[in-house]
Every structure is written in structure tokens, then in C-alpha cells.
């Protein structure tokens, strides 16, 4: 489903991603861990081209972008439409209700009919447990509820891949569970997901593969048991000790 080859990204002089190779099969959940500043967010944003890679090849589904040549805006928008993203700070549209937030993409981008979109959006909000909050504005919802709207909004575009950037780290501890539960359900349904998170329990339970990043490179990757129980690299061990 996803394949990345030789991905690099520099901001001015600072090289943040130093050649990443990665592939994710359809229906897999990949969890990315690593210390602050290691480039996890940048990697995720290079997958939906919110950040334009400096070099490398990124492919999702049938579409391939090669950043060794110039890539046009139009190609980027087309490519991005295969992905959905869930942000750490939710980034809901504050001037729209929960329902309108979810309807916005299908209505404006896919230009689907209003009635059908409305039905789909209501179904998605019920699915994330917010069937009774569809007419609430973001400022009337808790963080956990807002994040679930964020997930429903991303799902409404029927993406091939969902990207999560620390979806629970802005939440009060008692609200983390409700968001993780929605994510687990999605994983069970076979959604392809790349998740940056510090929730190691989630990684152990749900991930097919865990990737440990440091300083812009993938230090180690493997099944959760390998990474958490018997990491090969000393740096992985140090990191895991630090966060536990």
C-alpha cells in the first residue's frame, strides 16, 4: 500500500530525514516511535506531502511521486487525496458543527450529493460514538470528542491510508482511552494506518510493525514483541528504558 524509498527532507541546512526506506502492506498498522526531534512528524507529513520531500520516491496505492524531479501542486493534491490525517491538536474547523466538519470533504472536494453525504457523516459520527453530538460546535466538545470528530472527518474521504500524529498526546489521561478504542476498531476493520504515538500499550496490542526512529533514520523495525522485548540496537533499548 505504502512504499518509501530514499526519502530525505531538509529545512534549509538542517537535514531532518536522512534517507528513509519503508513499506506498509494493505491493512497493516505501523507505529512509529522515537525521541523528540527525531523526525517522526516530518516523516508522516512527507507521506501526505504537507511537507514536500527533498528527495526520494513515495508511493501510495497506484500513485507514485518521484521527488528527484519537480512535482506540481496538482499532482500533490491528487496524491494526498488517498490519505487522511489526524492531528495532535485536532484542527477541527471551529466555525462548523461536528456534522459539518465531517461533511466538508465529501461535499466540497468530492462534490457528492448533500443528502448522501449527510447520511454518511451521521453514520461515521455514530461509529466514533458521537451520534448524539452531531450539531455541537468544536468549542462545545471535550478534547477526546473533538479528536473522534477529527477521525470521522478523515474517514469521510474514504482514504486508503490513515496517518495519526500523536493523536492522544494533547488529551487528559482519562480521555485517551476513548480515542484509542476508535483507532483499535479501525485497525480491526483492516484500515491501513501509520501512527506516531507514545502509547506503548497501543503499539503492543495493535501494531503489526513498530519503527524506532532517531536523528532522521530508522534505527530498528520489527514486530512489537521483537522491539519491546528483545530490541537488537542499543539505542532502542536506551529509548525504551527512558520512557518506561
Amino acid at each position, binding site marked *: 500500500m505504502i512504499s518509501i524509498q530514499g526519502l530525505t527532507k531538509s529545512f534549509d541546512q538542517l537535514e531532518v530525514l536522512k534517507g528513509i526506506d519503508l513499506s506498509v502492506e494493505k491493512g497493516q498498522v505501523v507505529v512509529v516511535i522515537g525521541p523528540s526531534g527525531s523526525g517522526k512528524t516530518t516523516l508522516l507529513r512527507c507521506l501526505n506531502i*504537507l511537507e514536500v520531500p527533498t528527495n526520494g520516491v513515495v508511493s501510495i496505492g497506484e500513485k507514485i511521486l518521484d521527488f528527484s524531479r519537480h512535482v506540481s501542486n496538482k499532482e500533490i*493534491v491528487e496524491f494526498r487525496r488517498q490519505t487522511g490525517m489526524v492531528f495532535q491538536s485536532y*484542527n477541527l474547523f471551529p466555525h462548523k458543527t461536528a456534522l459539518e466538519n465531517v461533511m466538508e470533504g465529501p461535499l466540497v472536494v*468530492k462534490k457528492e450529493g448533500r443528502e448522501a453525504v449527510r447520511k454518511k457523516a451521521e453514520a461515521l459520527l455514530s461509529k466514533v460514538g458521537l451520534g448524539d453530538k452531531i450539531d455541537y460546535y468544536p468549542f462545545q466538545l471535550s478534547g477526546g470528542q473533538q479528536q473522534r470528530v477529527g477521525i470521522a472527518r478523515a474517514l469521510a474521504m474514504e482514504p486508503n491510508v490513515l496517518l495519526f500524529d500523536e493523536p492522544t498526546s494533547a488529551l487528559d489521561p482519562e480521555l485517551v482511552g476513548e480515542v484509542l478504542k476508535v483507532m483499535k476498531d479501525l485497525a480491526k476493520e483492516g484500515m491501513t494506518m501509520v501512527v506516531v504515538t507514545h502509547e506503548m500499550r497501543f503499539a503492543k496490542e495493535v501494531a503489526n510493525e513498530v519503527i524506532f526512529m532517531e536523528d532522521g533514520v530508522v534505527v530498528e523495525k520489527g514486530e512489537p514483541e521483537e522491539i519491546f522485548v528483545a530490541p537488537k540496537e542499543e539505542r532502542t533499548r536506551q529509548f525504551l528504558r527512558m520512557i518506561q
Partner: protein
Amino acid sequence: MKMYLNSIISDPERLERLIDIAQSSLLPMLEGAILYTIPLTLITFVLGLILAVLTALARISKIKILQFIARIYISAIRGTPLLVQLFIIFYGLPTLGLTIDPFPSAVIGFSLNIGAYASEIIRAAILSIPKGQWEAGYSIGMSYTQAMRRIILPQASRVSVPPLSNTFISLVKDTSLASLILVTEMFRRAQEIAATNYEFLLLYTEAAILYWIICFILSIGQGRLEARLDRYTAN
């Protein structure tokens, strides 16, 4: 001051005459307000806002030539007096064979003015919307134009309500300058009546009070609008 008051108190006939003038001038002045001051304000504000949004979009676009045109326009309007602009349009352009009636001249002049000033307000409002809002729009597949139209501008317009309503209230007062290019708006009516009876203080004070009342009503509306829009903005 003292003399003026004494002349009124000691002379019942003069007092009567002043009351008479105040009453009889009220209708023509209100007429001037309803036929010209208020329509001029509303029309120019709407046209000016359209111009302002286009100018703001040009200012923040990546297209250099659009940026340049917008900058020149804003700089020229802000760098020259409104009265001089009005005089160029009404008294100047006929030299080039372009004669425009007083009211349309005023509409053009004031719209160009609002367009330049309000564009800076709108530009600042657009830039104040958090980057995450753009990214959320992009993440559901929007193009720049779609994100601008559906996500950013609606929020920016809420942010710009307070400064724009100040602009609007200033515009009400500035329309009095249209009297100098022969638009028979409220203040021109006061001038015309004063020219016949020389009661300048009375008539200009009366005009001032009428402007004040209009602006007072507007500022109440402004307060209500702001309170309502306050909640629906990203922070």
C-alpha cells in the same frame, strides 16, 4: 459664547427663530441622510469590501505581479488625502473627457478608499488563522482555493468584524466630505440651509448630533455582532 447665549435669552423672538430653523431643517437633513449619506455608506462599504478581499488575496498570493499591483494601489490610496482623491475624480477627470456625476464619483472615491484600508485588515485576519486550519483543509484533499474559500475566509471574516466595523463607522462620518463634490448628503443640506440664514453654529451642531446618533446606533449593533461571532474562531 456668553454673547451668543445672552442674545438668545434676552430676545424671545430670536429664540423662536432658532427653534423654527432647527425644526424646519431637520426634514431636509434627514432626507439627505436617507437619500445619500446612508446609501452612499452602504454601497461603498459593500463595493469596498469586495475590492478589499480581492486586494488582500492578491497581496498574499505567490504571483509577483498581483502582489505588486496590490501594493501600489494600497500605497497610493493610503498616501494621499481622501479629499484630494475625490477632487481628482470629480473635478479632474472631466479634463480627460470623463465626466462623472457627484454621487457615482463619491461611490468610486470612497470604495477605492475602503478597498485599500480594509484589505490590510482582511490580510491580517487571513494571516492570523492558524496554519493547522490550512493543513486540516489540505488533509481532506482541498486545493488552495477551496481551503481559502471554505475554511480560511469564513474564519478571517469573523476575526475582521471588530476592525471592519470601526472602518464602517468612520465611513459614515467621512461621507460628509462628499458635500465638497456636490453630493447633497446630510452635511451639504446643513451647509445649504446655513447659507440662507447664517445660523452656522445651530445647523452644524444639528448635523453633528445626527451623525452622532447614527454612529451610536451602529456601535450598539457592532457590540452585539462581535459577541455573537466571538466563539466560532480557532485559537
